[in-house]
């Protein structure tokens, strides 16, 4: 490994993982969630199979509450790259009127993300799904394998994970079982941004600061992206210079006040930051091990 930079080593390791899946799975898919990690994931996938075109589709599980800029960016990237994009929405949840305001973050995430993802994987019979999760994000993710086996019911058993010594991934599975594969396992948030800068990868403009309409609610700055967000008494919309460190459903994603309007600004801001990127995620704080529980239930 001498002579390779830290980013080159990470890149090679991720490409190796992509190729291991395409060589052993019948019907893989890339979970595309539009954020910076997905942007890097997609970029690496394209590199891994060059000069062949991307040999699998992208799947976006749309909760219908993503920022409008995310959806526009998604459609534009898929068109530019000529990728097949599958958008799945849980119609049952939509009919039942599940939404982050009335139903709460927990139910909304369960129905519109976790259940919806399972529906999509079942409908298309995908047996391997790439995700952009990193081990540095969250404590229970630090324990996740690169190849994470899921039962036919999509459950994760954290106490019974397959050992992954060296780079020897056991890719075998029984009918109905599937694997979630995480090529960015060993990347950190800093690596992701350094790589985006090095490779000039396009990302959603929401990562860059600009004046946006925000409401302060329960100590979090929420950007009012459309009029489905009803203001409570006393709340008012202010234009503040904000940006986002992670992207998800707009009512569940806290903005940070910032003036960082370029890539080098946000990298500098991240290096000086004293808080983690998931701080702005409302769902992570539902309880000490809440991410682990969601993952056992099939959340990505």
């Amino acid at each position: 490994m001498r002579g390779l930079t830290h980013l080159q080593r990470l890149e090679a390791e991720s490409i190796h993982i992509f190729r291991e899946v395409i060589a052993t799975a019948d019907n893989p898919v890339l979970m595309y969630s539009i954020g910076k990690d997905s942007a890097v994931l997609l970029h690496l996938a394209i590199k891994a199979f060059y000069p062949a075109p991307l040999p699998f589709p992208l799947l976006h599980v749309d909760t219908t509450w993503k920022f409008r800029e995310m959806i526009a960016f998604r459609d534009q990237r898929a068109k530019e790259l000529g990728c097949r994009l599958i958008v799945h929405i849980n119609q049952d949840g939509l009919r039942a009127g599940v939404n982050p305001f009335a139903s709460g973050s927990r139910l909304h995430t369960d129905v519109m993300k976790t259940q919806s993802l399972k529906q999509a994987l079942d409908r298309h019979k995908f047996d391997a799904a790439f995700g952009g999760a990193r081990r540095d994000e969250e404590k229970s993710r630090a324990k996740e394998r690169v190849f994470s086996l899921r039962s036919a019911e999509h459950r994760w058993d954290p106490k019974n994970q397959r050992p992954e010594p060296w780079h020897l991934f056991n890719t075998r599975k029984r009918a109905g079982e599937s694997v979630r594969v995480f090529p960015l396992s060993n990347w950190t948030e800093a690596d992701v941004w350094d790589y985006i800068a090095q490779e000039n990868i396009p990302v959603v403009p929401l990562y860059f600061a600009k004046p946006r309409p925000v409401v302060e609610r329960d100590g979090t700055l929420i950007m009012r992206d459309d009029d489905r967000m009803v203001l409570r008494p006393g709340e008012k919309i202010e234009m503040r210079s904000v940006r986002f460190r992670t992207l998800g459903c707009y009512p569940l994603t806290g903005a940070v006040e910032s003036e960082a309007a370029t890539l080098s600004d946000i990298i500098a801001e991240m290096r000086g930051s004293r808080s983690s990127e998931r701080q702005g995620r409302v769902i992570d704080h539902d309880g000490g091990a809440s991410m682990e529980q969601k993952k056992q239930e099939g959340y990505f």
Partner: protein
Amino acid sequence: MSAALAITAPAIREASLLRLLTCGSVDDGKSTLLGRLLFDSNAVLDDQLEALDKDSRKFGTHGDERDFALLVDGLSAEREQGITIDVAYRYFSTPKRSFIVADTPGHEQYTRNMATGASTAELAIILVDARKGILPQTRRHSFIVSMVGVRHVVLAVNKMDLVGFDQGVYDRIVAEYIEAVATLGFTSIVPIPLCAREGDNIAGRSPRTPWYRGANLLEYLENVTIAPAPDQARRLHFPVQWVNRPTLDFRGYAGTVATGTVRAGDGVTVLPNRRRSTIARIVTADGDLAEAVAGQAVTLTLTDEIDVSRGDVIVHDGSVMQARKAIVVRLLWMVDRPLRAGQGFIVKIGTAEANAEVVALRHAVDIHSFQNQQADSLPMNAIGVVDLTFDKAIATTVYGRDRELGSLILIDRMTNQTVALGTVQDDTPRQANDNVRGRTVLALVGAAGSPQRRRLWSSVSRKVVEAIVLFLVVAVLSRNGWLALAVTAANVLLRPATDRAAAWVWRHLSADATHPAVSGHAD
């Protein structure tokens, strides 16, 4: 020294990356040590610290004090039981280096996860509880660490606060450990007295161990140099991972270079069928390369249309690498059901898979003495040496030459579980002794550039200067060169004995005075 930053400039972070693991017996404080390392290198951010303080009050074992283990034990079962079940990977950087740390479980039941963490590590921190000393699990983990080729060990003697920072306790543990692992061939063993919970000797010199003169843990990790394995293959090994055939005009072989360097124009042989060709192009999405080195993921094209598929290995013409149908393997058996001769599995080596049979269990390794023992089965977490045969030839080599093509896993055909990991052994007796002798000397003097080697040089040079000064002083005073020579020689020869006598006197005096800080020479 370690005014460490959580995230540093990429140019510096790319300078070097160290992969290490923490291991040792249950409750030796591995997770606490790692949590403390993260905290002391400023890798714990404010919101995480706030969550830690909340968790410490709920699950913590030190009253309202911060329980650093909760920073790394992420599964709820782990937090409830206060143990580590699965290997966790943690990332932090200082201005000098980036680190990937595998925090591995101490329970024997989870040895497989410990071995997984060790397989990609370059250095192991082996923890010992100062009150308990060397335990069976310390020996087991040391053996597994050496089995997967880790050659640098930090012996972290933890919980020194609970033995009153007593140097005698520390010295005994260090001596016992060095003797216990003498046959395992480590290049360096660096002992450090620690109290991980309170941060002694983690990122600064502890005032409570004045007798300890070595580097603190973070300082050592930042500076240790890891040389490539002495026997590592220098010629090309390229396991073919996937055949890339987007059009009729392009046929490329995608894979990651395991060892050596590949250049366009190189003459190559494809194993196992030994077809020969020449490298035409080294294709990447960033353009063709003139050469690719170990660790790079590329796509090779050949000048000839020959049959190459996943699992084949491309090597330089004249390579000693061979495809084989029978090998000798050292195995770690990882499931409840015992391993016996006659059992069949799927084997995976590099990108190749085949049906495999364990035709003989040569012996098991006793985890206390590291001696070979007769055995007719291997229970869970046991290590043994077996003869393995395949239903087709697979290109493989001895583990010391190539970690990627000298390692394997066995998979149960029914359950698809990964039931064993193994390293390919040399089955022909050869000049292995030369290497063993080299390593023994190295263990005594330390690797080039290591603190151990520096200490040795400084003490040798000090003694030479002392001898010269003594000779000159006596010669000038007595005007007798022969007398000066005799005095100098007597000093050099008798000094170790008088030093030891003085240390003995001091230790007894200080024990009487219950003054643990004064305990003679330490080094």
